């Protein structure tokens, strides 16, 4: 039992927050709860604290909208939180699509699809930054928040709170894409929101640290990591994971049986010494 907890504690906590947040939003719409109203685009905590998706507002600004001060405060709250905590913590602890892509990834391992597709990944992980840029350009040209109109993240989240419609189709597509076409396809390559949070969380404080002296080179961490390029130091150097692309999902920490990975607060001075 304790082994189970040890190996899955962060996964359990993550699912707990992800689903908990969904239930709170759902309850606000269905039963009038006043805890977390709205949805991931913009919401209110206890009817007081505004929270807004900074990337959505960025697109609105590009589209030429006059942004209300309520939204700007909401953006500040969210941006500051992820700036300090680690941008892509959103991805692994909040975003509902994460559950879809994680399960596709899990099935990939079960069916050994990874090994069947040994060819090099056909597209680069930088595509997300291109899409991020294009979304802002298209927003400016079309006068609407471009990604918000097609975002499967909002579609799924809104769908779970307000009713799904054909939203299942978009989610199904992502699932199949990640399962059969491209490993970590959506979250690791395409999603511009993930890209946005990667940039935002570049300097955040909560980091995964690697202790080289404990590492037995089993590489379990690299198997589970959805962004394994960030773990380039495994078995080589005792370094913190500094890339903003790390989602702080902590799967690496819990699969590591040798205690070579752990969370800690980023120490800027020490990092300097290690040649950041």
């Amino acid at each position, binding site marked *: 039992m304790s082994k189970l907890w040890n190996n899955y504690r962060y996964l359990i906590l993550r699912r707990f927050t992800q689903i908990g947040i969904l239930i709170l939003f759902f309850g606000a719409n269905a039963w009038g709860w006043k805890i977390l109203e709205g949805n991931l685009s*913009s919401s209110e905590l206890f009817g007081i604290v505004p929270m807004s998706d900074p990337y959505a507002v960025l697109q609105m600004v590009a589209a030429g909208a006059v942004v209300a001060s*309520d*939204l700007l405060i909401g953006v500040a709250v969210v941006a500051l939180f992820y700036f300090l905590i680690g941008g892509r913590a959103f991805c692994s602890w909040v975003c509902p699509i994460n559950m879809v892509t994680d399960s596709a990834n899990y099935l990939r391992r079960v069916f050994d699809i990874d090994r069947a597709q040994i060819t090099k990944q056909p597209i680069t992980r930088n595509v997300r930054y*291109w899409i991020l840029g294009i979304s802002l350009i298209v927003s400016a040209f079309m006068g609407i928040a471009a990604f918000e109109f*097609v975002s499967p993240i909002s579609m799924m989240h809104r769908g779970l709170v*307000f*009713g799904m*419609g054909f939203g299942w189709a978009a989610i199904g597509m992502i699932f199949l894409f990640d399962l059969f076409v491209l490993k970590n396809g959506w979250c690791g390559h395409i999603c511009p929101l993930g890209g946005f949070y990667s940039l935002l969380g570049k300097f955040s404080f909560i980091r995964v640290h690697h202790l080289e002296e404990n590492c037995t080179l089993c590489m379990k961490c690299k198997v589970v990591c959805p962004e394994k390029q960030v773990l380039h130091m495994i078995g080589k150097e005792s370094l913190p994971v500094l890339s903003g692309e790390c989602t702080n999902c902590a799967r690496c920490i819990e699969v590591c049986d040798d205690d070579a990975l752990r969370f800690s607060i980023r120490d800027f001075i020490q990092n300097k010494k290690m040649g950041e």
Partner: protein
Amino acid sequence: MKKEALSDRRKFILNMARGVGYAAIGGFLWSAYLDDAKASPLILRPPAAIKEEDFLKTCIKCGLCVEACPYDTLMLAKPGDHRPIGTPYFIPRDIPCYMCEDIPCVPVCPSGALDESSVTVNGHLDINTADMGLAVIDENSCIAFWGIQCDACYRACPILGQAITVEYSKNERTGKHAFLKPVVHADACTGCGMCEHACVTEKPAIFILPREVAMGKAGSHYIKGWDKKDESRLKDAHAIHTTTNVSKRKAVDKLNSGLEGLLDE
């Protein structure tokens, strides 16, 4: 000719160029889709919604207005609803806007897509100034226009007597009955859709359209001489001066020219 290996710099530039190419194609396709997605003119928005074009930019699709509405009038468009995904709308035939006095849907909007000031009069919210759309009557299917008595829409209207009035006229066919025809007044109608909801015909004979769709525009060429205020529309009018070769000369010169020959004879 010997082929030289591509330098790293050259490779980088070529890769960049390819990236830009893909990006441009993607951007075009994306824009085309968006253009299609936002071109649906028949959507009714919540009270106090700003101009559709600005609304699409401004609404962050949070659904706070939807949650605030006690009658479940408002919905967020889902994929498959044929409306810009995520934006709030309502279908009056199903659930109209009941014109809450305190308009709970409006102040909660964080983005300004619903503009509280547009429904505020002397510091108080006044739902009667809302402008969700305009009721339009199809006189062919409205049974009151057939001579059958019906005032369902008139009774249902929250601004009874102002937004809809009943016009009496003689029914020449029977000679002894009256027509009681409903008439919608654009200046008072809020577009709440209570009339459409109440209409007794199979498909409603009175229905709400967005104002830009429902209304025409006379322009400033026609002025109601009997209405002092109507002249104010003239401020939009502007004179058009066209200069052609003929109009450059005075009319008299034009008439006289060409007569020279005649006088000579």
